[in-house]
Each structure stands twice: as structure tokens, then as C-alpha cells.
């Protein structure tokens, strides 16, 4: 199993003067489902292509198992890949597409047929083996691409935004299917996506990237509950976390434009306060809390996104069901352990704890931070 351990050491890719990937290091243990997440242009696809051998690293080393594969051609690295465009051969039938690699590796015909039957069964393509890719739906093409990488029986599978060409419903089905296949076949998967829902729902571990560097490397839970920076906070979660600039108030830091309620100690001034929309409670104006004005609301069925203004800033609040609030003023309340503080360089402030808002039922101390996630 150890031949599927992947290790990147200070891997860099430069195009001219700009570094698309800047000294990235991480290690993937066998059987892990690792997500490379980030906005477009953050270097996640380039990183994946360097692991695959489709791009050559400008510097640094890539190890797979015990071997240094940094300069090896893609075919010798012992991995398979699923492309965003599926990369199916349009003139070959589904069956020929799936066994394409086995033919290249001169696997005996009888064994090819046997493995084809097994894999076709696994991805539910048995009835379509004689069709051409053009005669298949998007989801079926996606399955052919998956089958082609599964049949190679390589322990490592790289996936480059494999679901982005599918519609929303199909995408959620395929998410579950890919995850189920991965745990059933015990594959090591590195999966590139810009979709935080895919990252959160599929990954054992998420590596969040920005500008060619790793911002945070941790479990989905860690990324959600302890974002390492304001960028990580705004990238994970939908709707995104509210980020409010903090200014100096009478007793401590206050939200810019709302000087009456202290939300954090003085040390946090100049930084940002982050609160997830789902962690905010909307209260009538008569109760204590942060004074706010309701701007508008979006009713989504199970919940409602209420847009409110605090001082000069607008933030979103997520409420279950349909709120009975009328327009006008209201108050916001959140538990201090659900508030996040970020320094003015964007990094998480762990040394300073957010203040409890007036009207808290009781003051709960923050649980200690779990695991190491900071780089």
C-alpha cells in the first residue's frame, strides 16, 4: 500500500517570472481523499498536473512511494487521471475507450475482457459498451472516464474538476458515487475543485490554495470551524462568512459604524470580525444585542437569508424557515465561540478572544483549538 504515498517537497512551477505554484509541500497517505481547493488561477490544477507528470516542476521534488518521480514521464508514475473534459476518444466505442490503457500496456486480451466486464458492472455501463461517446449523456461520459481510470488498477487517481461539466442534480449523485467508489476500492485520490460543496462533502482532507501557496490544510471540519485566514473563512461556507472591519471604541473594538456594542478586546482593532450567517441570531429591537437594520430577505424554503445593515456594513443572516420579523430595526446576537477574529494581515487571531455580547445567557469559555492546521 505504501507505493501510493505521495510526497511533494517545495514544488514550484514558474511561467517566466511568475510562480503559478510557489514552494508547495504536502504529503498524502494511502487511501486518503484529498481535495485541492481554491479559486481559479490559484495553482491547484498546475499542482495536480505536476503530480501527473503533464507539467514538469521548475524546482522541488515529487515522490510516489519510495521513488522520486519528479522527472519521470506520466506513464511511468503508476497513476490514472480523470479530466474535466473527460478526454474520451470520440472514434472509439465505450469498451475500447475503457481498455485503451490496457492495450497500451499489452495486457492479454482475455484479461482485458474480464477486467472490462467487472469495471463496466461497477460503474453501471454494461449496456452501453458498444456506443460511441457522442451517444452518451454527460453523466455516462463521466462514468466512462472513471471506468478508464479504475480499470488501470493504479492505486492513485487524480481528478481535475471532473464534475464541473454536469448539471447540479447529476453533480450531487456523482459526488456520492465517486466517494463510494474511492472507499470501496481504497484508492488514493487527489481531487481538484473550486467548488467548496464538493470539497466539504467528499474530502477527508482539504488543501486550500491561493496565489500558488497553501492557505490551510486540514479536515473539512477544521476549515469550517477554524479558518486559518479571512480568505479561508470567506471561501468555505455558503453564503460566505460575514467579515466586518473593527475600529477602536470606548471599551474595546467595535464594528465600524456601530460604536455602542463592544464585540472584541482592543487588541483586535484594525482586524476583522468574522461570523457565519448561520451563527447569527436575529432578535427584536427590545432585546439586547448589536443594533441592525433589516434591508431585505431572500426566502429559500428551508431557510431565509436576511440582509441587514450594521453601521456602514451589510451582512447576511441565515434563519430557519420564514422569519416573522418586520422591516426596521432589530438586534443581532451571536455566541462568542462562534465569532472569529482575523488580524489586519488576514491571519487568524488566536491570542485574542471575541467578547461576549451583552445579553448572553452565560459566558462559555472557548474550547481549545484542535489539531494543527496553520502554515
Amino acid at each position, binding site marked *: 500500500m505504501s507505493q501510493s504515498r505521495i510526497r511533494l517537497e517545495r514544488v514550484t512551477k514558474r511561467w517566466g517570472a511568475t510562480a503559478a505554484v510557489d514552494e508547495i509541500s504536502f504529503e498524502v497517505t494511502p487511501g486518503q481523499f484529498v481535495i485541492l481547493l481554491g479559486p481559479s488561477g490559484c495553482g491547484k490544477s498546475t499542482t495536480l498536473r505536476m503530480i501527473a507528470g503533464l507539467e514538469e516542476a521548475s524546482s522541488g521534488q515529487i515522490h510516489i512511494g519510495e521513488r522520486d518521480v519528479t522527472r519521470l*514521464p506520466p506513464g511511468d508514475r503508476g497513476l490514472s487521471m480523470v479530466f474535466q473534459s473527460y478526454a474520451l476518444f470520440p472514434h472509439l466505442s465505450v469498451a475500447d475507450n475503457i481498455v485503451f490503457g490496457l492495450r497500451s500496456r499489452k495486457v492479454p486480451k482475455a484479461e482485458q475482457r474480464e477486467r472490462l466486464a467487472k469495471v463496466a458492472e461497477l460503474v453501471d455501463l454494461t449496456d452501453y459498451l458498444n456506443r460511441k461517446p457522442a451517444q452518451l449523456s454527460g453523466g455516462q461520459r463521466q462514468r466512462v472516464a472513471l471506468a478508464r481510470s479504475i480499470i488501470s488498477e493504479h492505486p492513485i487517481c487524480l481528478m481535475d474538476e471532473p464534475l464541473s461539466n454536469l448539471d447540479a442534480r447529476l453533480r450531487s449523485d456523482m459526488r456520492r458515487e465517486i466517494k463510494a467508489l474511492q472507499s470501496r476500492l481504497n484508492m488514493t485520490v487527489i481531487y481538484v475543485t473550486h467548488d467548496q460543496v464538493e470539497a466539504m462533502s467528499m474530502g477527508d482532507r482539504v488543501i486550500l490554495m491561493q496565489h500558488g501557496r497553501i492557505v490551510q490544510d486540514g479536515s473539512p471540519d477544521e476549515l469550517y470551524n477554524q479558518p486559518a485566514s479571512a480568505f479561508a473563512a470567506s471561501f468555505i461556507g455558503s453564503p460566505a462568512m460575514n467579515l466586518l472591519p473593527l475600529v477602536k471604541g470606548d471599551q474595546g473594538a467595535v464594528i465600524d459604524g456601530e460604536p455602542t456594542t463592544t464585540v472584541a478586546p482592543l487588541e483586535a482593532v484594525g482586524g476583522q470580525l468574522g461570523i457565519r450567517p448561520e451563527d447569527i441570531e436575529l432578535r427584536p429591537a427590545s432585546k439586547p444585542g448589536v443594533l441592525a437594520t433589516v434591508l431585505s430577505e431572500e426566502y429559500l424554503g428551508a431557510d431565509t437569508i436576511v440582509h441587514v445593515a450594521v453601521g456602514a456594513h451589510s451582512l447576511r443572516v441565515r434563519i430557519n424557515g420564514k422569519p416573522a420579523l418586520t422591516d426596521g430595526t432589530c438586534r443581532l446576537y451571536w455566541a462568542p465561540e462562534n465569532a472569529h477574529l482575523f488580524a489586519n494581515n488576514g491571519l487568524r487571531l488566536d491570542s485574542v478572544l471575541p467578547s461576549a455580547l451583552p445579553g448572553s445567557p452565560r459566558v462559555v469559555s472557548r474550547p481549545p483549538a484542535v489539531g494543527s492546521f496553520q502554515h
Partner: protein
Amino acid sequence: MALTAHHKMQMYGALLLLPAAVLLATFAYLPTITTVIQSLFLPGFRGAPPEFVGLENYRFLFDDAKFWKVARNNLIYALGTIPASIALALGMALFVNGKLPGRGLVRMAYFTPTILPMIAAANIWMFFYAPQIGLFNKLLGALGFSGVNWLGDPSVALGSVMVMSVWKEAGFFMIFYLAALQGIPPELKEASDLEGTSRWSFFWRVTFPLLMPTTLFVLINALINAVRVVDHLFILTKGGPNNATNLLLYYVYENAFSFFDRTTAATITVVILLVLAVVATLKFTVLDRRTHYQ
């Protein structure tokens, strides 16, 4: 009778087609029909009306040894130039499709023979082939070989004409292959690289089948050109020596304008048209079924 909107649309469409239809009818279909009619008659002497002879002209033509020699020349010419120019075109296209310094320049260089008029190209090759001062014989002389009379020796002349044709045609076909190659998504190459597929195997299993529509198109064009383009014969050999390089269309020209035998010229033309039609039909029915169109 009131015109309905539908009829008006029909009229409108017909009027738009009219200019092209008139031009084609006047300069393509009518001449073809008169040629076919002409091949069935013998001209009358001294004002006598032409005499209908049925297929007599064809029987006469098929008894003519010179016609068969020219037809055989044309067959050899086609079999020699078509595969060679297509293979060369494909090779050049694969080469300039890759990453190489000065790619634009190389592409242009390969395409240059196509821009040259056939007459100009033939004049250039005339200089290559000239017996005493020619480039090829000078090169051979420098290596210590005796020269070859490239265009004067009946056993070499047809080959020399063919080499020039390949040189002229390949660049043109390369453009089509290059366009088709750029339409092949690069992920296909990457996907096959990941499976350790060799370049050679990738070419035969993916690139070549995906280029089939282009190959078919180029093949038809090459075939038509093998019969249609004879400009270089006017400069290089005039069909000689002893008809060693005479091709069908040049023979038509000779009959019509040197021997003033319009009937024979018309008869050969009809034969050429028939043969081309049969070959094109065969190609489209047999090869089309095995070709993948995207």
C-alpha cells in the same frame, strides 16, 4: 392568383439561387452536355451536317494505342503522386504542429510551393532538371556521378514530373491536416500519455482515425488534381519524349488545339468524367462508412 406568403418565400429563395444557377448552367452543365453530344457525332466535311455515329468514336478511341499509353501514364502518375503527397503532407503537418522554434516560419516555408503558380514552379524545376547547368546534375557531378537527362530520358521523365507534382501538392494538403490536428483536443494525448502509450501507437490508434475525414477530402482533391492539373507539362516536357509524360488532359488539349480533332477530344473528356465519377462514388461509399465524423 394571389401569392401566399409561402409561395413568396419560395420565389425569394429561387431568385437568390438564380445567379449561381445561371453561371453553373452556362459554363459547366451546358458544355458537359454538348461535349457528350459531340462525342456521339462525326463532323461533316465541307458544310455537310454532322453524322450521328453512336459509340463509334469510343470504339475508335479504345483501339488507339496512344490513348492507352497516355491513360497508363496517368494511372502511374496518380498512384505515384497521391500517396506520396498525402504522406508527405501528413508528416509535415505533424512536424509543424509540434513545439519547435520558428514554427510560423517553417509552416510558411512548407506552404510556399502552393502559392506559386504551377507555371512559375515548373520554370524553377526546369532549372533543377536542366541537363548541363541543372542543380541536380551539378550535385551529382560534385559527388562524382554522371548526370541524368531528367526530362529527356523516356524512362525517367515521368518520374521527374511526378516528383515536381508531389513537391507542389504536399504543402497545400498540409494546411488541411494542420487545421484538423489543431482540432484534436490536447487532453487526448495527455490521457494516452498517462497510460504509457507510445507516440507511434497514439498516432495509429487516435490521430490517424480522427484525421480520416481530412484524408478522405484530401484524397478526392488529389485524385481530381492528378487528372486536372497539367500546366507543368507545357513548360517541362510537352508530353514528350515520345509521349512518356503525356497525361489525359494534356492529350485532350493536343487533340483539340494541335490536331483540331474536336471529336476525339470530346470523347476522351467524357471517358475522364466517367472514370472520375466512378472513383469518387466508390470512395465516398466505401471509405465514408469507415470514417468517424465528429
